[in-house]
């Protein structure tokens, strides 16, 4: 009951430090609600009680009661509690309590118009030098660079293993927003800003938690004709003759949705991925500057996945 | 007008100032914030800079980090002197009016304007010299700060010259052909123009050491 955040429609929290933020969100909104529920009825009652018909002559002397002073005192105390009890400690953890590098996934994220480049240091654990003209590409002469791995648009992580992101940008300001991880940090050119968090849910778990039956209607297909429809089928959709309309794990692209609809399927059981959303206006493509977060269940899976990007 | 605006010339009793006096000080307060903002930007940029004034101009080494290697300190010192002298002649011009000595006023005001023009000439020589050495605002942020701050200051000087020239030339009609009230009004205006002019001087007093010497 005291957890308003369930009712507020925040994205599913898949991170280690999300819970206190959500709790705080809920407390702030309790405070807001309390103030609102105090003043709104008072306001409406006063309007009714003191309308001219009922109160033809106003009372010159004002209210003497001190209750507004008490109320304001209450607000001060509530805000102080929020600050000292929640805001300062949570922020301090986020900003200062970095995990040990040896126990963390380390990744350098370089944003550009309009993509996210994830750079992993490879086996040697050292990032290669970059060249000034292509700050994402590795300098071929640097031996450290040889094993570095660049993944565009996908942030691969391991469940329960802390991540340290070294965030920067090579052109304009972007913002590295991970709604499910309660992470948002501007990527500012000229600065390399460290960010850390712990993914507590793997992509598999996330999809299971988010999976739901989505009706495909004329409307859904219409909406799906707008290209970015990023849900994934959570089960197979065979036709009567055994061929597949859609397979489990397949992205429900507009074409697939249409195929399903025409094949007589009216509901799909589907789930989304965790995403990276650019939260800072960065030019014409800002709206489409999307990345995905893929959290592997084990380190082995992670290594295997990264190996595929190692050319 | 059916009603005159009060306190245009005489001060209001409870505040002790006339409208224009208060107005110019308010304007100067905003100018303080304008130049304050620029100085704050300067501090911010300089704190964040790898090197200042910039390695690529005179190579690396101890000395190259000093501004006076790049900027012309003697010329700027001269300009400082010019500007404080003009500030003094400005206040003398006003005092002459107060003593009802109009020709002395014309003299001092004339000198003020000439000094101000001199300041701009020196400034132009300085700029020209920089351009000759291919040093432009775009060369690095030190020169950027130098050109933008001193440039904006020079614009303020130009504004002051225009105002003062008006009060030296056509504007004097108010004194020569006016009533006693007009004369008082004119003296007030010179005081106001003077306040502005001293402020321009004051800005330079901070610009000079922080840009040229440090």
């Amino acid at each position, binding site marked *: 009951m005291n957890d308003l955040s369930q009712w507020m429609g*925040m*994205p599913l929290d898949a991170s280690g430090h999300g819970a206190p*933020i959500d709790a*705080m969100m809920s407390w*702030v909104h309790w405070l*807001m609600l309390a103030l*609102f529920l105090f*003043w*709104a009825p008072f*306001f409406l009652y006063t*309007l009714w009680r003191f*309308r001219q018909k009922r*109160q033809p002559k*106003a009372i*010159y002397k*004002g209210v003497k009661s001190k209750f*507004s002073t008490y*109320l304001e005192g209450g607000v001060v105390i509530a*805000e102080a509690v929020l*600050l000292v009890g929640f*805001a*300062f400690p949570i*922020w*301090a953890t986020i*900003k200062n309590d970095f995990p040990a590098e040896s126990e963390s996934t380390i990744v350098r994220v370089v944003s550009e*118009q309009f993509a996210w480049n994830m750079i992993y240091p490879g086996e040697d654990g050292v990032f290669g030098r970059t060249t000034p003209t292509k700050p994402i590409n590795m300098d071929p002469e640097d031996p450290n660079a040889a094993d570095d791995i660049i993944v565009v648009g996908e942030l691969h992580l391991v469940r329960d293993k802390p991540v340290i992101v070294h965030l920067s940008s*090579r*052109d304009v300001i972007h913002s590295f927003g991970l*709604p*499910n991880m309660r992470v*948002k940090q501007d990527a500012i050119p000229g600065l390399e*800003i460290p960010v850390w968090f712990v993914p507590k849910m793997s992509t598999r778990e996330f999809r299971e938690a988010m999976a739901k039956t989505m009706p495909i209607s004329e409307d859904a297909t219409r909406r799906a004709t707008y290209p970015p429809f*990023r*849900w994934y089928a959570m089960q197979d959709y065979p036709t009567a003759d055994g061929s597949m309309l859609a397979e489990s794990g397949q992205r429900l692209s507009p074409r697939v949705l249409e195929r399903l609809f025409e094949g007589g399927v009216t509901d799909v059981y589907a789930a989304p991925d965790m995403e990276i*959303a*650019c939260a800072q*206006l960065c030019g014409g493509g*800002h*709206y*489409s500057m999307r990345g995905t977060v893929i959290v592997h269940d084990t380190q082995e899976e992670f290594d295997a996945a990264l190996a595929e990007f190692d050319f | *007008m*059916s*009603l*005159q*605006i009060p306190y245009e010339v005489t001060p*209001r009793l409870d*505040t002790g*100032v006339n409208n224009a006096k*208060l107005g110019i000080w308010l304007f100067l307060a*905003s100018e303080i*914030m304008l130049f304050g*903002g620029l100085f704050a930007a300067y501090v911010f*940029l300089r704190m964040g800079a790898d090197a200042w004034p*910039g390695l690529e101009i005179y190579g690396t080494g101890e000395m190259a980090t000093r501004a006076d290697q790049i900027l012309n300190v003697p010329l700027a010192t001269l300009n400082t002197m010019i500007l404080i002298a003009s500030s003094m002649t400005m206040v003398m011009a006003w005092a002459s009016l107060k003593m009802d000595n109009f020709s002395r006023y014309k003299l001092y005001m004339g000198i003020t304007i000439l000094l101000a023009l001199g300041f701009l000439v020196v400034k132009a020589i300085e700029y020209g010299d920089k351009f000759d050495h291919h040093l432009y605002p*775009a*060369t*690095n942020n030190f020169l*950027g700060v130098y050109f*933008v701050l001193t440039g*904006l200051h020079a614009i303020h000087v130009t504004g002051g010259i225009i105002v003062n020239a008006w009060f030296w030339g056509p504007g004097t009609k108010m004194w020569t052909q006016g009533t006693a009230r007009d004369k008082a009004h004119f003296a007030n205006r010179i005081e106001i123009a003077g306040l502005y002019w001293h402020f321009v001087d004051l800005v330079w007093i901070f610009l000079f050491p922080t840009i040229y010497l440090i």
Partner: protein
Amino acid sequence: MAEPHSSSHEHKQGFWRTYWFSTDHKVIGIQYGITALLFLLFGFGLMLLMRWQLASPGVEIPLLGALTPEMYNQFGAMHGTIMVFLGIVPLAVGAFGNYVVPLQIGAPDMAFPRLNMASYHFFFWGGVVMLASFFVPEGAAKAGWTSYPPLADIETMGQTMWLWGMVLLITSSLLGAVNFITTIIQLRADGMTFFRMPFFVWAQFITAFLLLLAFPPLEAAGFLQLADRLLDTSFFLPSGLVTTDGPLEVAGGGSPLLWQHLFWFLAHPEVYVLILPAMGIVAEVLANNTRKPLWGYRLMVYSLIFLGFMSFIVWAHHMFITGMGTAISAFFQVTTMIISIPSVVILSALFITLWGGSIRFTVPMLFALGFLPMFGFGGLTGLPLGLAPTDIPLHDTYYVIGHFHYVVAPGTILAMFAGIYYWYPKITGRELNNTLGHIHFWGSIVSMNVIFFPMLIQGMAGVSRRLFDGGHTYSFSEGVMHYNVLMSVAAFALLAFQIPFLINFFMSLKRGRKTTRDNHWAATTLEWSATPTPPVPHGNFETVPTVYRGPYEYSVPGHATDFLSQDEASPPAAEAVAAEELVEA
């Protein structure tokens, strides 16, 4: 008095001097008002195009075709800029401030009438430059109203126009601010002490200080950005930038954060520039229509001063996400929480004023009453934004958009309408139609809530702002995308509900019922009691009023009518009675 030629002489000065280059604060106020309303309508129009796109991404707009992302960004940046700098500020300060302040303090005009005229013309040309920027190659500024570099530095020519426009607008505001402060300090009529000034005058006074001292750093920043764009300096550009066109040929070494600091140093006080005059109008209308003094007038004034002071040191709450450490974020969180307290005090005082009143539900009163909960609601949504940890999920989402639209649209805009309905009879000598007013009010407040409340829900779900497709790219926003249609429909409904207002506004000029008395609302302040309706053209008052009492002496016990004007030299007996009853109470 001093000069024999009177107002009739002034009228012979021809059209241009009378209506365009006038130095009469009332004419200038009207000029400001009409221009600002037109800009508001234009800004609203841009927004409707955007809302069309948000509701149905990619669907063509009649006559205009489908929007491109670049167009969307232009419209967004210009909507923000126009609404704030060309709409609300000129309306709240330029129009209402100009027209009403000298009348309320018993001054013949502003202290510097010609400066006043210049200030309007700077504003006008600033607006023209802004609008003209739509027609330069590649269109208007598209880096948001915040113009963050490096994006703004590398943007197209429209951004340069935006900067020049801002320089003109800032100059206009600075001249205005000097004028307002001087006028209020110097030209108060006899007996008009500071604590007898109407709350509206106080609000304008503090607002003028905010404009005077907060705008110059943005002007400085504007010059620096202009230098970056025109002289190729790199104040805001760090080294090593590589855009899609290859490496950027600049010296580098600058800081993008510098701009943000300078911008928000202005822009936070600026939001109070938007709200304080609105509070002032609401206070006037409320006192008049409850027939009762403002509760805690002095406390409100002190809160106002404190609010003005604090508004200078909270700016970095817009920058929590830029990588702020613990010490500075703690400072700015604390100041942000502190600044909410005076707002709570003022709002509470206004609520409590209602208690014990004899409330007349006139049209201006409806708008003023609408302001109260709407501003409260918007203000409350500022709290989670002001705390750094909760700002993480909310920053740059529609929650922020929802927050500030609640304060500026159903907040400030309703208050502006309250002002228009309240002073229209004063300015024109005619009444506005009541029925149309009611339709306008109820239609506006309902549709505004339908537009802005879902924004909070979308923001909670994490939908970023400034998205060309409204968020369809992301699967996490899937569940809240359907609101976009509702919101856009409501936005068009909002437009429809402005039609009765437009009809009312223009028709009443000719057809409205003539006001039967000078003091149409039976008000206590000087603009109603000391000058005819409409006021004397130049000079405002036939004789300079003398002020005997505070601004809101309504329903004074023992007085014959339920209002006691500030300039009414009432028989001593009545005064004594009033004082006596006060002592008893």
